[in-house]
Each structure stands twice: as C-alpha cells, then as structure tokens.
C-alpha cells in the first residue's frame, strides 16, 4: 500500500512533536490507544485564559498514518478555541490525509486523543467532562 504524499510529509517532517508540562493547570493531556494494538497517541494542549489553544504537542507510537494523523491534529488545534476543537471530526483528517479505509482507525484515535486532552483540561479546571459518542471504527 502506498502512502499519500501528505502522510509521507507529516511522517518525514512531523509538526509539534514534544511534551508539555502535564502538571500545569492549563495543559490538557490525552493518552489513547494501547501498545498491544500497535498504536498509542499522546496529545497535549495548552490553553490560555480566554479558552484559546496556544500550543499543542504530540508523541505517537504507531504507523505512518497514526503519526501523520496526530501531527495534523496538533496543527489544526493551535489557534482554535477549546469549543472549536471539540468539533474536529476524524473524517476531516481522513480526507486531508487521504487515508485508506484500513487506516481510518488512526484518525479515530487522533480524534479520541483530542477529546481526551480537552476533558483532561476541563477536569483540571473544574469543568464537567464532556460525554462523546463512541465512533466504533476501531
């Protein structure tokens, strides 16, 4: 299976690889997936007092599509408000990266990671955690 150019580009030059201080109150961390399944994503957001995501970082254990999905997700997160970030849909990632059907689960994982990071941030700041529908494309 050949990868799309966009996947190759994100894999070769991943954006926003790194770690934010998870102890900080305005940093939300989402860790999703499992080593046994072959992919684990950690996605972090840093939010300012107006609710704007000022920084996003990721680290991913997984295939090229998983790395590309999380790299692209961090790019999209930066500059969005938390409320806008909730709207990011895995199919947007699929479309942008041209992921084949067998790799859709990578985009689902990235969406899960975004939501997990947002909920972590909300929890830390005394907000109720959001309940999301299961995507079920695992």
């Amino acid at each position: 299976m050949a990868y799309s150019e966009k996947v190759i580009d994100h894999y070769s030059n991943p954006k926003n690889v790194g770690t934010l201080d998870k102890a900080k109150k305005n940093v939300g961390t989402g860790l999703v997936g499992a080593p046994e399944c072959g992919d684990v994503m950690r996605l972090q957001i840093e939010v300012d007092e107006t609710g704007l995501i000022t920084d996003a970082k990721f680290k991913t254990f997984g295939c090229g599509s998983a790395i590309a999905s999380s790299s692209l997700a961090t790019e999209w997160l930066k500059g969005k408000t938390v409320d806008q970030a909730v709207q990011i849909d895995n199919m947007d990632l699929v479309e942008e990266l041209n992921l084949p059907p067998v790799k859709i689960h990578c985009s689902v994982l990235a969406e899960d990671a975004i939501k997990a990071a947002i909920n972590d941030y909300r929890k830390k700041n005394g907000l109720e955690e959001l309940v999301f529908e299961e995507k079920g494309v695992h």
Partner: protein
Amino acid sequence: MLKLPIYLDNNATTPMDPRVLEAMLPYFTEHFGNAASRNHSFGWEAEEAVDYAREQVAALIGADPKEIIFTSGATEGDNLAIKGVYEMYASKGNHIITCTTEHKAVLDTCKHIERSGGEVTYLNVNAEGLIDLKELEAAIKPNTILIAIMYANNEIGVIQPMKEISQIARKHGVLFFSDATQAIGKIPVDVNKDGIDLMAFTGHKMYGPKGVGALYVRRKNPRVKVTAQMDGGGHERGMRSGTLNVPGIVGFGKACELARLEMAADAERLGKLRDKLENALMQLEEAYVNGSREHRLPHVANISFKYVEGEGLMMGFNKNIALSSGSACTSASLEPSYVLKALGLGDDLAHSSLRFGLGRFTTEEQIDYTIKAVSDTVLKLREMSPLWEMFKEGVDLDKIEWAHH
C-alpha cells in the same frame, strides 16, 4: 557503487538468478513440447529436460529422481502431502501432529483436515521457537499417521531438530513430512540423513522461477504414497496430474544445481553479513532478537525494537530498503504475527519487529547502508514515541490501564 533500492525480503521471494533464466528461455519457444507427448521429438526433448531437472532437484536433497513430484509450489506441496497422506492412510488412523508456527499453507490444510473429521495436535514452541521433543513423542497416539514440522521458519529462520523428530517418527511408525521451503538451497538438507518421508519446497525462494516446486515422496523404507488431489492425466506417477511446466521445471532444476554448488560459500558470506547487521542493530537500546540465534538459518534476522512500531519504522526507509515486519499494520487482519506471539512475545514486541532476509545478491555496502538507515529511524521514532518517553522516565508500561480498542 551502492545499488538502491536494497532488497532484504528474500524469505518472501528471491530474484531469479540470470543463469536460471538463461537455462529456461529455449523451453518457452524452441523446445516447447509437452513432456507427455511420447511420439515425437518435441515431446522427447521436453521429457529429457524434465528428467534432467528431476536429477538436479534430487541431487540437492540426496534423493532418488523418482522420488521428486513436480508441483506448482510449496503451498501445493503442503496440501498434497498432508491431504494426500490423510486420505491414503485413512485405514491406519486420522491424527496429525504439527506445530503452531507452521506456515499458513500447513496450518490451514490441517484446519481443513479437522473439518473433514480428522484430528490435529498443534504443538507449542518455546521462547526460542523450537518444539519440545518430549511433547512431540507424548502427542503420538495409536491413530497418529503423520508428523508435519517445518524445516526452518519463514519469519524467524529457526531450524527445527529434523533428525531427532524423524527418529521419534520412525520409532512409532509415523510418517514425517517437512515444509522445507525456507531451508532448501540455504543449508544442507538430506532426506536420508534427516529421515524425512515427505518434503515440500519451491523454486522462487532459491533464485528459481515462481510457480514451480516439488514434493519429495520417499520410495523406500518406507514406501510412501499420497492420494492425488487433482484428477487428470496421471502425471508424476499418478500423484499430480497436469501438463508439466517444462520451462519452470528446467529453471527450478538449474536453481537447485546452483544451490548445490554455491550454497556453502553463500551461507558463509551471508552469515557474516547477517551477524554484522544484527550485532550493529543490537547496539541500540531495547532491541531483541526473536527466536534461537543458535539454531537458525544464516541469512535471517528477526529483531524487535521496543517502543517503536514496525510499519512506522519501515516507512522511514522503505523507499530504499525492502523488508517485512511482524506488525499488524502490514497485514489486512490487523493482528500481529502469530509466529512471534507463539514465542511468547507480547503484542507490543510483535508490533515492533522487523525481518531481515539476506540473499545471494546482498552486498556488504547494502548492509552498511541498512544499519545506518534502520538505526537512525529507530532513534528518530523513539524521540516521537510516548512509550519511549515513559520508559525513560521509569514508568512501568504494564501497569498502565490502556484503553484497548
């Protein structure tokens, strides 16, 4: 000059040796006869070429030419041996013993046997990938008719103890079949010294053409017969009907002859290159060789690089290096390698494995390039891996509750 891309997937298939192609070419056009045409020179030429190839194949494995049944490849050989024995010896019993790390062509044939009322015991392997001989002997029952254990494994290159297995089989009057696809032409195989009764192998794993292989069927001590699985003209002593693939057989014969003459030198050279590759890659932290390093084909290395995923890893260099991974992501099933799991590896290590299969045309320059490319990519991906970061911080990954999906 370094030639790219580098092919290190020789367990999947090998390039054909140009000398093999040269031997084959006249049999497509000039000498196109049907080896079964008994009444004219076109047929005689073809038959003569097939007879010669049969000698070349037999010589490589220490067999009599009459014991070679040409097939379309090892999958057909596996099917013909297992189903053929199961049907031929139905009056003696219906139990077959095999092991969990066999090729799918053997495992799925055994599943077929089970569905048709037969009984199959699947032996486990130890962490080195080897079966336990005591377990094998204990599994033999009065209705056991066949032991089917591969010579060398396709994923990890581990060589099973053929002589010891055949002694047990002999002692109990059970036939011994071996899928020797990965071993033939790579290490010395002798059906008499090894005590093998039936053996499947194929041309394209030993620098011969695809679509042609052989099943060795012992004729003496004991005389073995298999029930044909295809009805037709009764070719190949009635065991395998179908017009013989003369050019393919000629090429297969030539490949066997070259292997017989060059195997020792190839194995020595490739063993050194493999060790160089393996030793260099084992310098990386948290790298593990899968399977026995002692009982192993000289040209194969299977290594797990913990905390990076195999497919992601291959993507770092697959423009220039071709190899395989036990990672789920390379298969349609999304399940990691059942062979690596049978060794007791966790799914995480199975996902992190690469299989290096060197071959006759692998050069030292290519190995040096591969060492650097793989090492660089492992390091780069570990910088990107949350698991690596956690490992470095001393987090016990086994204690984390992962969301299994």
